[in-house]
């Protein structure tokens, strides 16, 4: 991903976070929301036509109702992340469908989850991955492969030692260390499966871009899986 694109995405996320904090200053930090993101998004939309139509829809929607809905969904997300209950039925109901503003709010939430919360980060990628609609969504998924790999479940920056190796369950430990990346790959796989031969060229190109990013991620199994998915796209 080039720097310009990363910059645009960062501005967007920061803008959404800032506006959210301003509007919901009385609520708990984890419920901070993107408030009236239309202006901020419009700046970005000039460089990403994919979100233009969604922006028009937002402008005509009652903003209070929209904010309440985003707020409600973020609260549900926070409850699920705090409970560590991956079988909370709301993952498949309330959070199954996310509009553009909600997805931006969830992306912002992702940035504020500690790196060590591998399942929490993976959960958000899973939810965004089910709602891939525009270039920003794919960009978000692709950025997961730009993250530094998590080195230890207790502290992602800590260099693990050989003596810490838990051979008995090290396979599963390593999967969890790279869980967000695997979930991102699974999202791409689902997209490929759902589209089959009829996947639109624009979507195909975006999926391929994410898979290329995965291929350059420093993990042999992730690289390998990405290559296999790319084969299925051809």
């Amino acid at each position, binding site marked *: 991903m080039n720097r310009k694109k990363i910059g645009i995405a960062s501005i967007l996320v920061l803008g959404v976070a800032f506006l959210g904090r301003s509007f919901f200053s009385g609520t708990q930090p984890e419920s901070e929301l993107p408030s009236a993101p239309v202006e901020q998004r419009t700046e970005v939309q000039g460089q990403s036509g994919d979100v233009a139509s969604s922006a028009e829809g937002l402008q005509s929607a009652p903003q209070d109702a929209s904010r309440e809905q985003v707020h409600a969904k973020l609260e549900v997300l926070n409850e699920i992340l705090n409970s560590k209950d*991956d079988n909370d039925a709301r*993952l498949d109901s309330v959070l199954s469908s996310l509009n553009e503003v909600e997805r931006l709010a969830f992306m912002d939430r992702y940035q504020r989850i500690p790196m060590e919360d591998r399942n929490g980060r993976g959960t958000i990628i899973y939810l965004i991955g089910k709602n891939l609609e525009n270039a920003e969504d794919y960009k978000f998924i692709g950025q997961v492969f730009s993250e530094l*790999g998590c080195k230890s479940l207790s502290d992602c920056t800590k260099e693990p030692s050989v003596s810490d*190796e838990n*051979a008995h369950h090290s396979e599963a430990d390593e999967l969890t*260390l790279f869980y967000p990346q695997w979930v991102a790959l699974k999202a791409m796989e689902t997209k490929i499966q759902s589209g089959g031969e009829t996947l639109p060229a624009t979507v195909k190109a975006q999926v391929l871009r994410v898979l290329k990013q995965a291929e350059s991620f420093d993990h042999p199994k992730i690289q390998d899986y990405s290559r296999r998915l790319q084969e299925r796209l051809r």
Partner: protein
Amino acid sequence: MITLFSFLSILGFNTTVHALEFSKEVPADIQKQFLNDMDFIIQVKGKGATPLHLKTFGIVSGDNYMKFFNKRIKTVDLSNCGNPNAVACVSPFLHPQTINLTKNYIQFSHPQVARLMVIFHEARHGEWWKLGWNHADCPVPFLDKDGKPKRSKWTGAELAGQPACDTDTLGSYGLSIVMLKNISKHCTSCTGKVRMDAALYGDNQMERMISKTAMAALKEDLYTQHRK
């Protein structure tokens, strides 16, 4: 003392669980997370199962998983399991009916299915009458499909020679593979995320199967056509 039985009774679950006793050493937050995870597994409902799952558990259902678990584990204790990254362990010859949880059970952010995978893997080790389903030593050298030594991504530690592989189709690794892959395929009460995680971690455990016969049996059971 909190028991799983009383917890479930309060919630009104109709399931055939026996009392599960927590040692007073187990902190309340670990107990709570463990009970929440078991609550999830108790509520699993499914349609069908593969032959190996039928043989081991029966159809995919919380009742069947709890029958399996309760037959083997009676108490929950706290330990560090001798490793800073361990989540749980069983000592097959000292205390086969006790599962030890470590503080990592709540400190590490594994998906819920991954925690349960470890719990059921360890419960299998509680079968003293099967000598705890001892693991086999991984072969030396232990190579991946590209002919490179299988090693830890970060530490570079090799698995070759470590007692962390299985030759039995339904040893601890095989059992958890069968359980997870069936949850991914047949659980009707599971969220999409749980089913995705179950497939991910189930596939991942196949790396530890080193017997061609066992691998063939698992592939036939889990990776061929859908079975009822």
